[in-house]
């Protein structure tokens, strides 16, 4: 092979990386957008601590509320990143969570077993997720379309499940739920699931091919990637996240109606984008986006609640500030990618 290595440009700092090409430090112009979601969370946390301290809020209680607010969203959103990384979109996450939580509740009522409840939540959510993925694979439809159909079906299933109790709600023994609705349980579930997701997404073929599909599905196919198998694996993991989220939802809210978990779907989406997740998926997908975004949302909510507790227009102002902060973080996070590619 003709050696053309003399034409390789030296790096900015002149040092050589392990591949023979030059390693370099990232410039602030590149670094700031990459770190924008993290910086956003740091800024919000500082504001949260300052506002809380000045207002004389019980910080321990406040932190507990913050975790309660964010843990379900973080878990479901982290699992959903496996779907969104491929450039796919699941609109039925909230409905799946509700149905899985209801089935889990019914399972507990029938067996009085925590394990049975957990297994029922997970199996229901994974099965629901796989139905969407399988329908998309069999009929060669965009996943978004099948999840729209699932949204309707799951709404009907939730109504049917409630009707089995003869009332308007599914109720789990609240003293049992309170027993497990604790920070150690929540954090254990969250940490275990996040660790699994980080491992699968960062260190296995699955995460890599998902980003490849999101970046360019045609290239992925011509590189030998099975779109169907990958989609099914992604939906299975997302289903696991929904199942765990549903389990914690039952513990937190042991009385479930058809309108429970109504805002989970939208909050999951907002959390991912807030955390720096490109909605089109692809190579810039980061598995920790859900964690950063979910926490940022919860910290911002808590701070605004504390700040505007005495204002009658507090909720409205809080929503506006949340929207502005959201826009600012996403704008900075994406600024590095708008003018980077060479014209072709």
């Amino acid at each position, binding site marked *: *092979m*003709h*050696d*053309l*290595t003399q*034409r*390789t*440009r030296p*790096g*900015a700092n002149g040092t050589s*990386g*392990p*591949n*023979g*090409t*030059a*390693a*370099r430090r990232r*410039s602030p*112009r*590149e670094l700031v957008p990459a770190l924008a979601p993290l910086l956003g969370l740091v800024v919000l946390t500082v504001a949260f601590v300052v506002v809380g301290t000045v207002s004389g809020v019980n910080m321990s209680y406040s932190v507990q509320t913050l975790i309660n607010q964010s843990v379900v969203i973080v878990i479901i959103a982290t699992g959903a990143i496996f779907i969104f990384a491929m450039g796919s979109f699941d609109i039925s996450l909230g409905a799946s969570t509700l149905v899985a939580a209801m089935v889990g509740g019914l399972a507990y009522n029938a067996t009085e077993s925590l394990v049975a409840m957990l297994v029922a939540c997970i199996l229901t959510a994974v099965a629901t997720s796989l139905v969407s993925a399988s329908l998309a694979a069999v009929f060669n439809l965009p996943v978004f379309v099948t999840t729209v159909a699932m949204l309707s079906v799951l709404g009907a299933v939730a109504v049917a499940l409630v009707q089995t109790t003869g009332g308007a709600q599914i109720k789990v023994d609240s003293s049992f739920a309170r027993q497990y609705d604790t920070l150690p349980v929540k954090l254990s579930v969250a940490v275990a699931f996040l660790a699994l997701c980080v491992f699968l997404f960062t*260190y*296995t*073929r699955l995460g*890599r*091919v998902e*980003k*490849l599909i999101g*970046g*360019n599905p*045609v*290239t*992925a*196919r*011509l*590189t*030998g*990637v*099975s779109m169907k198998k990958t989609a099914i694996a992604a939906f299975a993991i997302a289903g696991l996240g929904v199942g765990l989220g549903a389990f914690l939802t039952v513990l937190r809210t042991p009385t479930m109606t058809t309108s429970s978990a109504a805002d989970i779907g939208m909050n999951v989406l907002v959390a991912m984008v807030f955390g720096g997740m490109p909605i089109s998926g*692809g*190579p*810039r997908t980061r598995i920790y986006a859900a964690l950063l975004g979910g926490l940022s949302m919860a910290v911002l909510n808590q701070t605004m609640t504390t700040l505007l507790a005495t204002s009658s227009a507090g909720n409205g102002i809080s929503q506006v500030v949340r929207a502005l902060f959201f826009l600012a973080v996403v704008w900075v996070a994406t600024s590095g*990618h708008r*003018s*980077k*590619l*060479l*014209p*072709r």
Partner: protein
Amino acid sequence: MTSESVLTVTDMSKSFGVVRALKGVDFELRDGEVHGLIGENGSGKSTLTSIVAGQQRADAGTVHFLGRPWSPASVNEALDGGIGMIVQESGTVPGISVAENLFLGDAGRFVRLGLVDRAAMNREAGRALAAIGIDAIDPRTPAGALDFQTRKLVELARVMMHAPKVVVVDETTTALSQHGRETLYRLVDEQRARGSVIFISHDLEEILAVCDRLTVLRDGEMIRTFEKSEFDEDAIRAAMIGRNLDGHYYRADTTATAFPQVLLRATDVTVGDKVRGVDLVVRAGEIVGIGGLSHCGMHELGQALFGAVRLDAGNVVVNGKRIVNEQRAVRAAMGYVSKDRDTESLSLTASISDNIASAGLRLLGRGRGGLITRRAEERYVAGPMRQLAIKATNDRQVVGTLSGGNKQKVVFGKWIACGSEVLILDCPTRGVDIGVKQAMYRLMVQLKSEGKAIVMVSEEMTELMGMCDRLLIMKDGTVAREFQRGPELTEMEIIQCMI
């Protein structure tokens, strides 16, 4: 500025992140001339012309067009002002019709009572296509349903229907068949009467034939402008790469050689009416070329061999495994380099490392329980990066920031790294400069010597003759004739067979 100048660029600079694409470039275009712009991949040709054509803004420097400062805010503004550009890669929107592509951003002229008069738009589009001698394209066809060459002709029509003063042709001819090239050359020649052309090409022979003057760029700097009387291939090549190209451009030997082992056997391969009953055997250490006129079925045959299109009849067997889809092909140690590099072979927003590693993820996880570490990936990617001399800051550089030649090296690197034994290369040197071309050819010779089998689909006859052990000429979806490598083989003989 001289009295003849229509366009002058002074001290232009432009950076993309850490990449300095242009460094104080001066350029002058005279009225009535076809001005060649030549340089290696990454030299700044496309960047310079894309600024002039309104695709983006320069960081520094000035442009004067027809004696006035020129700073178009968009491609449409530039086109309306008199400068149109046909881009190197696909410049059409796939989901809309040919007519809608032709009038992209200008559909308002067909609005009647608040609604777009599509019939009028289609009629006007038909006239625009006919005006440049293209009558085989239905304006209602979605652009995505057309092949790459036809989409380029649509782009050509879109620019020419505005009768611009300056036309920029950016490395377009390699996407075109002989007929398409003749259409382009005719239009370029006619453009002399009403304005000028900036003609970008890596084909030195073509640029010498077409252009009146040419400017050489290297690493974002203007090196020299050659008048027609000064045209000298060796001097131009030396200016382009800053050194003399040594050794043979193509293979030095003139005899066909191969190992006895058959790696690929295709029998009665049929894909609609594009490929009809093609039989093909490729042995280890053999380079088989597939050539022909556009629409002869050669590109579809390449895709069929890789399992990228469903066969209506026949089968393809590689290393004893029947190829029914791309996954089977990759598992059977096949690799495929598409003609449409940006759309089908690369993930432009991913890094070099992500792209090269993408075909070898199973290998990377083997023996480690599927675990893929950054260190293992770095080692995996380092080999092809070094071997192919990919010009990049490091392996985390985003592929979309690379020049065409370096992108193509990344595509090659992807298949070399995972140890592909059978490579289907569809126009592998399209849009790459002579330095990269030479490196590609030498790589192919090396792969041949290692016992790999290569099927090279190409529209460049000299390339096929220069590199292949056997050459199959396709016509109307079938193999019209097979030629064996040898000193007596002539281009004329092959062309006669093609037509």
